[in-house]
């Protein structure tokens, strides 16, 4: 399965990078966030644990907010709100 980006609602977008390893999830997340508007939510789906560490640090550095964070059997679902 390849990378998928879609709009799921007003100001809500979903980026699915399941199956990708570093550095793809973090680079795609960075580029997607750059194009969203302030207050928009990015629902990020990924399954590469080490990308999560980098993404979390990037979110904090850029002043964005991780509003929801779940992991189940190696499947991560994070909701990021752009500052």
């Amino acid at each position: 399965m390849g990378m998928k980006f879609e709009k799921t609602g007003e100001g809500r977008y979903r980026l699915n990078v399941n199956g990708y390893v570093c550095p793809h999830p973090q680079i795609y997340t960075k580029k997607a966030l750059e194009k969203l508007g302030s207050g928009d939510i990015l629902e990020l789906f990924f399954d590469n644990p080490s990308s999560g560490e980098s993404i979390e640090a990037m979110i904090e550095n850029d002043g964005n907010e991780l509003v929801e964070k779940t992991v189940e059997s190696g499947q991560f679902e994070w909701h990021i709100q752009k500052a």
Partner: protein
Amino acid sequence: MQQQVASAATADAAMAKITRDVDAKIKTRLWAMGLLGFFAFVSVGTFVYNEYYIYLSVYLWFGMIYGMCLQYGRFCFSSAFRDLFAIKVPRMLVGIVIATLLFGVISAPITASGLSTFHAAPVSSHAIIAGVFFGIGMVIAGGCASSSLYKTGEGNMNALLVILSLSLTQALFADVGGWANYFVPEAWTQSALEKGLPASINVTDGWVDQYLAGYVWNNPALTYAEVLGMPNASIGGAFVGNLLVGILIPAGLLLAVVYVLYWRKGYRNKQKKAGNVVTGLSGELAGYWAMITANKRTAIAGLILGIACALQMLVIQGLRVKFGFKNAGVLLDRIGWDFGLSVQGTVFDPGYWYVTTQEAQWVGWTLQKMGIENMDNIYFGFVNGIPNPAINPADWMSFALIGGAAIIALYHNEFKFKKPTWETAMWSVIGGFFMGIGARLGLGCNVGAFFVRVANGDCSGWLFGLGMAGGAYLGVKFFNWWTEKKLAKEMESCGL
């Protein structure tokens, strides 16, 4: 009434989910315990069979510690440079520099006492060139040589593909001759011939052979202690030369540069938001310290990794003294496994953490078993041999590293079997290829040619690191272009 039924159904569903979660957790933890039990069984069983196997078990258990630390701290040298350039996150680079420092601090007394198993590598520009190849490869592959091992333990089959590509590339590259001899400068050939290597090595046939014997070996193998005119096995040499000049000062400066370029601005903004004003030297030092301690998980892993790396040298050296040999080739011969020893009777037995050579060896062994002659080169035939992977000490370390990572991943519910896609498989193979070339040119990978060398005061360590950083920068440039192109297409359909 309907509401009551609905809320009861919701409660039932929630309870069922909790039960499923608990069952899944118990199952994964049982797997983790089972794996640990397997390695313990191998260790105890082989020791009961023959006490010499304890030497291999030492490699095994240190490998397990490395795997656990790497997975727990998500320790990845590729991430260190790549995240810095791609997303401006210095977390991993800081963690790795700290781990290297700690490894150096613990290595220094061992070096001073003369018990270190470490040998410096020749120093020249080849280390930078090798690092560039390796750096490009590790970014394209999505992980360095060591992180590909721990990610395999997480069930990531892309990482396994990286290991296969890296292993195969090394084994073939180390033995390539024939047409490749055309690209060998005449001076290398002449110089290689002057080394008087055994006829079985056939030194004039093989690019890597002539590169090693005709060029690399002509350069001095130096530590910072030796540059300053002090022996390694002395207080001054180990602590002032190798530790202070070779590690503390350059690492401190590197972290200061990272602080100014990648951390300071974000830190000041966060402090400002929290109502604090960062002023003066004390404010800067607080920011510097916050950067170092930003990720406790990485820092803790780095601390244990550093201690374990140094301790492995000490324990291995102790066993060598106890059993009366300097290389595990003697041990393998004593326990009746003499296939695949080098012409000198040696096998690869670094005595410390290493990753790539044992990977090349198992492919070398497999190729030999398939009838391909590959002992007529320096890498396998003269130095490292191609012992059966089942009794190769360094392979025990790598297998256990994967196992240790799997145990921690299972324990934290992070294990997931991931099949590669065509795209990720392609990056794994290409990245593994570049890393394989870089590893053989640099006589090691991010661990053997950088981490271990820097921590032990080897002058070539930082040169390889410099090359790795350059290669990682080029790899990030490429991926930025690639992802931009793909994401733009997807985002267009959303009106972005």
